[in-house]
């Protein structure tokens, strides 16, 4: 129980940082999405049940502040978590570069999945793609920069809470 709780608190911090950044960047028409960071560490390094709980709780946190059906982010984060968890033994998951690469792939996939879920409300869907691609580009850059810092925060938080998970499922 302690591991999902500690991971959830780090996800809460992440949401706060990105929400403040998005608020500050609204004037320059940039919006950052960090969905990949909500899932990556839990899926790569934590036993399934604990990591899955943390990812879903992080998804529910994102759902509560977004005008989408409640559970959309949670379902997508849960599915992404299950997919990455199944692949993790084939990856060099102790390497920061590999973790960052996983985050970037996850982030782009989740961004496109949420776009697919929300774009039907837009009257002229073709016109929104430049903005969406711009947001995706900036998000990938921000996530690549923030990922090493955020992984360190998660590791350190788990150590401080004496909740370092075992590496096996």
């Amino acid at each position: 129980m302690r591991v999902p709780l500690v991971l959830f608190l780090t996800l809460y911090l992440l949401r706060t940082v990105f929400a403040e950044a998005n608020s500050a960047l609204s004037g320059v028409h940039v919006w950052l999405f960090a969905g990949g960071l909500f899932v990556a560490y839990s899926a790569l390094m934590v036993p399934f049940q604990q990591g899955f709980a943390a990812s879903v709780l992080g998804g529910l946190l994102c759902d509560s502040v977004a005008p989408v059906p409640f559970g959309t982010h949670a379902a997508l984060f849960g599915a992404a978590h299950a997919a990455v968890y199944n692949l993790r033994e084939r990856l060099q998951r102790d390497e920061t570069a590999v973790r960052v690469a996983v985050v970037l792939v996850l982030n782009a996939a989740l961004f496109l999945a949420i776009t697919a879920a929300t774009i039907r409300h837009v009257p002229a869907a073709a016109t929104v793609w430049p903005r969406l691609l711009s947001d995706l580009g900036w998000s990938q850059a921000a996530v690549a920069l923030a990922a090493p810092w955020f992984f360190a925060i998660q590791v350190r938080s788990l150590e401080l809470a004496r909740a370092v998970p075992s590496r096996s499922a």
Partner: protein
Amino acid sequence: MRIGRSQRFDQARPFLTLGLAFAVWLVAPVFVRTLARASFFEMTAPIAAAASYLSDLQQFWALRLHSKPELIEAGRDLARVDASYALSVQQNSALEAEVTRLQGLLGMPPTAHFRFEHARVAERDFSGWWQRMVIRKGADYAIPVGAPVVYSGGIVGRVSEVHAYTSVVQLISDPGLRIAAVVEGDTRPLSYQGAENQVFGPARGVIEFVPLDVYANASEPKVLSTSGLGGVYPPGLTIGRIVHVESSEDGLFKTGEVELDPRLADLTEVTVLVPSNPG
């Protein structure tokens, strides 16, 4: 053979858990989901509000750096504006009394009255998917869902969610928002919807059911304002400028583009129009 099955089960276990979680979520009662959403939102609200108060404090200390002559000058300018507004208020009172008298004579229903609730913006969330902001007033100030939100440049949007001490405002640039509107100097209603949030430049909306004799372009734009139909938004509030119109596919009406005020992206304070009983 037994090991192979075991490995396959291990590989499928994450997806079985995922399927189970989906199933539990699908059968969960609505009140559980509503409660969960409200609880998670209220978890995020203190941070947004605290950051907003800190920003206000920062601005306060920055303003304290102004010299006394600058403040005296600003106070003098403000007194002049205040005097002209005081005169407008007097004229407005006389006009309101006249309108009430005429409504009584003609037996018309009274026009909507609003209480003005000024609120600071705590958080802005302007993505390509949605456009909304969180303001620092909610159920504690009796803000209702659906109330119109305005600023000095016209309409901002409508209150879409009300929480304990914050509310969420859906902006007019949000693709999910539709408003009945009229072109300046015309009374025929048309439909406005938020649409495109550009990479560079202000957000845009689209209009439909535009009468065929309405013309506008970027060099000669026309002002689009609320029609008052539907009873949510009072009439005459500016939405934006029509910068392009063209015939629709059926040829019965025109469609067009509306450029919204760029100040919408940087708002720090808005006013919620809370409906109240006349008189």
